[in-house]
């Protein structure tokens, strides 16, 4: 279980990115992290995965716990070892490595060779397109294919929790549908919990159990996915209709 306790994140000692953000990602659940551009979604994920310090950022307040252990001061590599896999925004597939090598890198920390082989086949089942692109260099794959690749790569790590940063960015609607369907499947079958940061609220809330809405670095609304989907103010916020958040 992933727990954020009133974290405050700052970049370059001067840019305040998150204030008093608290969140809970229960085991086996899918949590949506919504908000418009610049609201702090990526920063939240980076705080969890330890990437904040690689961008001259730090947590000045609050703690982050994973399965009861504090992780907010650890290196990204250590956090990955603990079972959190951060799927980065954009084309983060290894461009010079082949599809298969990308997937093998996902299993970098694993020691169980046979299961890795089995998981590799599983990925090709989830994403048949990747099977045909097996020996192609990652850089030559299309946006949608690369997105599938990095999700598959994260799956290969068999993480307890996956953090996904805008998986639908730049993708055609049809592909978005299949990607979210597969994410749902991974969550159901493998019991991996997912924290999905997205601007595409509908698609995300359709598969999520719970959601948080960020604006200007604060959580302004949270609730079960059902409630959020129907909440009148929620719709206004992420469509940008209300600039002032309602008092909740």
């Amino acid at each position, binding site marked *: 279980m992933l727990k954020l306790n009133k974290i405050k994140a700052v970049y370059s000692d001067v840019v305040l990115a998150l204030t008093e953000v608290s969140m809970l990602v229960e085991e086996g659940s899918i949590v949506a992290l919504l908000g418009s551009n610049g609201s702090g979604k990526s920063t939240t994920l980076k705080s969890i*995965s330890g990437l904040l310090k690689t961008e001259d950022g730090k947590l000045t307040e609050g703690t982050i716990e994973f399965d009861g252990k504090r992780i907010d001061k650890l*290196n*990204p590599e250590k956090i990955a*070892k603990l079972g959190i896999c951060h*799927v980065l925004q954009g084309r983060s*597939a290894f461009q010079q490595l082949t599809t298969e090598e990308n997937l093998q*890198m996902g299993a970098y920390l694993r020691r169980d060779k046979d299961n890795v082989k089995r998981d590799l086949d599983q990925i090709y089942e989830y994403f048949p397109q990747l099977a045909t692109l097996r020996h192609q260099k990652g850089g030559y794959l299309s946006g949608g294919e690369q997105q599938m690749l990095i999700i598959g790569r994260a799956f290969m*790590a068999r993480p307890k929790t996956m953090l996904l940063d805008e998986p639908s960015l730049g993708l055609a609607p049809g592909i978005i549908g299949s990607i979210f369907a597969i994410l749902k499947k991974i969550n159901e079958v493998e019991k991996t919990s997912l924290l999905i940061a997205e601007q595409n609220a509908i698609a995300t809330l359709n598969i999520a159990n719970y959601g948080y809405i960020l604006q200007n670095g604060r959580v302004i609304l949270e609730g079960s996915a059902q409630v959020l989907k129907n909440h009148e103010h929620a719709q206004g916020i992420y469509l940008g209709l209300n600039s002032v958040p309602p008092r909740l």
Partner: protein
Amino acid sequence: MDALTVPLQLILSGILVGSVYGFIAMGFVITYRSTQVFNMAYGQFAVLGAFIAWTFIGSPEAPRLPLPIALFLTLVVAILLGLVIERLFFRRMIGRPLFATFMLTLGLLAILRSVVMVAWGPKSLALAATLPKGPVNLGDIVLAKEYLWSFCLAMVATLAFAFFFRRTKLGLAMRAAYDNQVAARCLGVSAELNSQIAWAMCALIATIGGILIATVSGVSLHLSELVMLVLAVVFIGGLDSLVGCICGGLILAVGTTLTSYYLNPHLPGIATIFSMILMLLVLLIRPSGLFGTKQIERV
């Protein structure tokens, strides 16, 4: 002797020597790819490595060890040296601007030179017969046996490293980290370990290469030659390409031997700056080199 004998001989011996140059340059490229450090002190690593080898193998006070053990010891010392240098100098520079690290390598160059001069003196030393010597005749062409041996060893070593990068998990991880370090860290690839391995490899390759060159031309302090040589090979081949190293080394060596034979009588000493001229031409026409990735020059 027909008209082709001389050029053929020159080209062949150029290929033999060039393979060693290419091999040495690989150490530079591996470090650059893994750590983004432009290591101006690299040539001095090779010189230092050769002198360490001399201590174990060639010097009069050398312990009477069988050759393989002596070589093994040298390589172990080389790896340790690489790790020490990483810890002392480069670990603290992670995250600092690349140019600062570049200047640091210049400082390191001076320090290493000083260490070599103080420890072994300014003399040239002969690395005792680590390789069999003598001429080998292929028809009309005469090649030096030790060059052939150097060539074979360089090729074997190159293939070993290629195997490491292509087929082992660690090698894959290093390639991934070069491709996208952040993504690699999120998958558990340790940035620190990466750095340590890169520098250990750097020292290892430099030492092997230094030994290979030394057995052919003696161990001495002529570092400026080695520094510029490696830089020339690396820029001709492409700053981040291992294939480019081999090609760069071959082109450079063959070119130098040909220039030396044909142009030296008219322009004495031109062969010594052939590498510089070629490197300049490449840098001005195609800065990324023959095989380098194009966007590198925007660094």
